[in-house]
């Protein structure tokens, strides 16, 4: 029952996704000040989730967009501009060195730095310092969940510390790597599985790197996960799942899930920003901080994920799908 690809329909979806990515990235650009590192970025009690995490996520999505788009593409120029902005925020990497002196065995400085390194923005002194720490048994034994551990391994690989194998030993320990019953999916499992895919595929740099059994598993089960997340208004997770779908499609050849995309895009705010979930904005207003802060925190990540997913979906190299894996007998994929 697989519907044959309709070139006109595919073209229309690609146009809509491209426009959505452009709007979402423009909104992101308009919020540069919210991504800027504050005074507390180097404070011992600083809130990493409010400082380094958003900046690193901005850098990661922009690095992927810049890599996957042509220099003449307006998306490319904007992504590159935002990436440079983020790099300047780190004082061209100097702050990573200072962070490491404060917390030598914390992994997040290397994880965030590696995003820049993968885009060619490097700080050799930090890399040397990171390599010294990474040689210890203590670093290798840092207690982290297996999904996070994959991220650290990927960061080490990007910084030339270790090689990232095709099937790292941590993979079977992750929810996704164990191929669990798909009906045990939930929000936490969802975020874990998307990140396993992102780390394996190096955030789109090597999107065809998924082991074939994972690609098949994802092709089979992404449709009900997407459907139920969209129904529940989990826009942020739905955006991540759409990115996973775009990555898996490079192996399986599945079409862009147009109906799921339509539902996500319908949830956008006035400037193309995507909310985290469907919580009422009035309810949000009751939280701490200024209105602008709350709005930013409720939108920035899901908006970045929508950009990431849309660009992955529209920049799929032609003819990359392995014919044996393409199409699924007995499945029609996402509804159209």
């Amino acid at each position, binding site marked *: 029952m697989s519907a044959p690809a309709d070139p006109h329909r595919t073209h229309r979806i690609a146009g809509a996704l491209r426009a959505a990515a452009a709007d979402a990235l423009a909104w992101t650009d308009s919020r540069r000040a919210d991504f800027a590192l504050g005074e507390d970025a180097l404070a011992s009690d600083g809130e990493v989730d409010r400082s380094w995490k958003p900046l690193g996520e901005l850098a990661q999505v922009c690095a992927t967009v810049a890599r996957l788009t042509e220099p003449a593409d307006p998306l490319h120029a904007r992504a590159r501009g935002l990436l440079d902005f983020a790099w300047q925020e780190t004082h061209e990497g100097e702050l990573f060195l200072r962070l490491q002196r404060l917390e030598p065995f914390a992994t997040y400085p290397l994880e965030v730095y590696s995003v820049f390194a993968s885009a060619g923005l490097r700080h050799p002194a930090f890399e040397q310092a990171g390599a010294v720490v990474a040689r210890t048994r203590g670093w290798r034994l840092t207690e982290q969940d297996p999904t996070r551990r994959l991220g650290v391994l990927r960061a080490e690989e990007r910084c030339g510390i270790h090689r990232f194998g095709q099937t790292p030993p941590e993979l079977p320990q992750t929810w996704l790597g164990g191929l669990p019953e*798909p*009906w045990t*999916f939930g929000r936490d499992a969802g975020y874990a599985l998307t990140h396993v895919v992102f780390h394996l595929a190096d955030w789109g740099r090597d999107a065809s790197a998924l082991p074939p059994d994972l690609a098949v598993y994802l092709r089979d*089960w992404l449709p*009900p996960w997407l459907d139920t997340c969209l129904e529940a208004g989990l826009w942020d997770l739905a955006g991540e799942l759409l990115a996973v779908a775009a990555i898996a499609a490079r192996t399986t050849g599945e079409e862009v899930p147009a109906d799921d995309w339509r539902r996500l895009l319908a949830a956008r705010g006035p400037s193309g920003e995507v909310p985290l979930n469907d919580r009422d904005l009035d309810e949000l207003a009751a939280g701490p901080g200024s209105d602008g802060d709350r709005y930013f925190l409720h939108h920035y990540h899901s908006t970045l994920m929508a950009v990431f997913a849309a660009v992955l979906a529209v920049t799929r190299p032609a003819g990359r799908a392995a014919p044996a894996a393409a199409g699924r007998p007995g*499945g*029609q994929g996402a509804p159209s």
Partner: protein
Amino acid sequence: MEQSGTSTRLQAAVQDLASGVVSALRGGGHAHVVPPVGTDGEAGDLALAAVRVLGADALLPGLLSRTPPDPAELAVFRKAVEAYPPRGDAAPTVRWSHWAMARTLRRADPSSAEPPHEPDTAWLDGATWQVLTHQLAVLAPLALPGEDCAVSRLAAGRPVDVARGFVRAVRRRDWRQAAGAGRWLTLLPGVPDTVGLDTGLDFVELMGGQDPLVALQVQAARRMRTGARG
């Protein structure tokens, strides 16, 4: 929400009937799953309507164990088939459900009239996997080993879609739909192993099994699965 007394009583009668089928399927001896014929008045009408609502599954225990039905039960079942023919404008699921009863009647009593021609499956042409699974779950009484019809052939062509629908139903805590889809999955070739159907049926029973209509489908699925392996 206000419900009419008749509707509530009918639902209760359907639940009772389903509970009887479940205990018979579990092997708790021969249970009289269909109320005795000759129950007059409203109670009789209600019992008959309940058999029509539960459909062909009212005789499922005997069908799966290949034991001849109790003549009294058969009489009530026959009466329900005759009393509720589908109207001209009936939904496809209603037509199919009635057809399934007629087929079951013929199996249970070969002297019965041949079942009418199968309705068509045009309404499922191009159905999304969500719609397909919902409709198949409503028509779970058609999911029987060794029994072929247009709906089962259509389902056999879309095993991954039905499995996706099962996952969706569990995620939405729609236990009746999950149980009905699970019953179909036990019969379909080409269902991905990763779906984990055995633990899935256990989970659906754990979460929704206090509803006899859920328990009936889970029990039917298990019986069919055991039969398929044996």
